[in-house]
């Protein structure tokens, strides 16, 4: 009989094949391509550039503009999801009639396919016939219809609204699971000590939610940094590239402009950015779990 490691390896072989059998070769090939000036999808002889594509990436203002937009998207959407997620989790953890129904309703945006979510919000934000314009005019909040997706920075924020609406439920449910593991006695102890509801939340609840919060931060940051689908369907990166995320920028370079070498270098730079974030968060996670 093989040892523990041997048995584990044997059990892991199918997964290794299914996952890394698909990923490893393309990943290596993309790295290789990133060193050449490849400008067509067909095999052939392309000039070797060394780190030229990477140099080009870091000296390109369009790249940094896309990074800035992606960082803004990532930070704003993640923090809103976390903040609203905590409030929503507290609500879903409170006792009231209809809580079960509300829980079942709240999960729905998360299950909605991203593409459908994008087209739905694009329709709601429509400058001429959109429901948002109609609602705000009828409530006398605005006097004229606005083009919500028509100016670069506003459009980016509206895409964030659509993204936050869809992803807050997942954050809320992970936090709810964290809330449910907190023993009731802790709250009661805090109350006996004279702490009010608000103080009790910050002293007792929030510290115990830290592991859930960190997991949400890691997952959402990675997802947001890769954002592509919702931008493709809502704005195609426009107007004036105002919503062009880094993943969308790389997609355009590789597939529309046929700059496969440059696109490959971009892909690696994105992966390094994400890896950097993940390592920082994982360091945080480890120190938190060490308690």
């Amino acid at each position: 009989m093989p040892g523990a490691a041997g048995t584990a390896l044997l059990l892991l072989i199918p997964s290794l094949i299914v996952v890394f059998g698909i990923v490893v070769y393309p990943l290596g090939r993309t790295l290789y391509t990133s060193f050449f000036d490849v400008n067509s999808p067909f095999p052939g002889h392309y000039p070797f550039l060394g780190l030229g594509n990477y140099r080009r990436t870091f000296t390109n203002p369009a790249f940094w503009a896309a990074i800035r937009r992606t960082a803004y998207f990532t930070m704003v959407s993640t923090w809103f999801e976390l903040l609203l997620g905590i409030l929503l989790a507290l609500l879903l953890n409170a006792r009231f009639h209809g809580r079960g129904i509300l829980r079942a309703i709240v999960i729905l945006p998360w299950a909605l396919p991203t593409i459908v979510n994008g087209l739905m919000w694009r329709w709601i934000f429509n400058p001429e016939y959109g429901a948002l314009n109609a609602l705000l005019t009828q409530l006398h909040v605005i006097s004229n219809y606005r083009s919500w997706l028509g100016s670069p920075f506003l459009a980016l924020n509206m895409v964030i609204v659509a993204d936050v609406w869809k992803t807050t439920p997942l954050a809320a449910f992970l936090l709810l699971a964290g809330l449910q593991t907190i023993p009731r006695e802790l709250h009661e102890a805090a109350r006996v000590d004279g702490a009010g509801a608000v103080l009790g939340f910050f002293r007792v609840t929030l510290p115990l939610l830290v592991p859930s919060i960190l997991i949400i931060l890691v997952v959402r940051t990675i997802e947001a940094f890769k954002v592509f689908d919702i931008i493709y369907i809502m704005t195609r990166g426009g107007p004036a590239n105002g919503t062009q995320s880094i993943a969308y920028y790389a997609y355009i370079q590789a597939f529309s402009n046929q700059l496969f070498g440059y696109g490959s270098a971009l892909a690696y730079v994105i992966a390094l950015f994400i890896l950097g974030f993940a390592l920082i968060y994982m360091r945080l996670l480890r120190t938190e779990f060490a308690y």
Partner: protein
Amino acid sequence: MRTEGRPARRRKRRGKRAAYLVLLYAAAVLTAVIVLAPFAWLLISSVASPVDLLARPLKWIPSHISFDRYTSIFHAGTNDAAADFRSGMINSAIIASSSVAISMAVGIFGAYAFARIDFRFRRTSLLFFLSTYMLPPIAILIPLYLTMVRLHLLDTKIGLIVVYCSFITPFVLWILSGHFRTIPRDLEDAARIDGASRLGALFRVTLPLARSGLLATALFGFLLAWDEFLYALIFTSSAQAKTIPVAIAEFQGRFTVDFGLVAAGGILAAIPPLLIAFAFQRYIVSGLSSGAVKG
């Protein structure tokens, strides 16, 4: 003085409690409205007449309701967008369920290894699997495309299934290993003392006890596959493999005049995942969080 003070304090406390309840129910109603209103508008748009949809001021309740757009999707000819849409639903169902079935079949063994066997680099190798999630799809898209051309897998369901398994399997390993760990080890040890092999114990003891976790994992994988867009966009081009998100994205491009038709398509594409989430909310949430918290 004292006898007067107590009822006053009690009244004050009761007032506070009432205010809390009012706030609580107000928050619950507000949440329900924010969540449901966009869905409701999508649904209304799919059955309202174009005249009502384009009216200003907007008519929230349509003057009459018609399901013509839904029937037109189901009865359309074979070479237009509506037909692509129909085949997209079928393709998505086949691709999502096949990739989940394969990912589960291979992932169960791996998850078991992560949950039950102490080996060096256990944590590191799980993280290694999960690190594939950090890769932007664009990092493997181009070579994968060329490989598929060479293997004649481009624009086939099998090609997409293979790719989907590569990102569903790490999730299966993660969620399921967290779940296996919640099942007492003693039960398995008892079976093994009775002469069952490791795999025998896995299949006869652990798996039946992990039913809810298996269901949660499979449903989560299905939602992931149903939602995937970028690979499908690049790797499929015809009705034989195109998935529903791709069909919808093209649908939106073609029917800019009548948004109602796009809305009807969106509603149909959303029905399977929404039903799954609504019906199995508890399983999915508890499965996800047990994997996430204990993994």
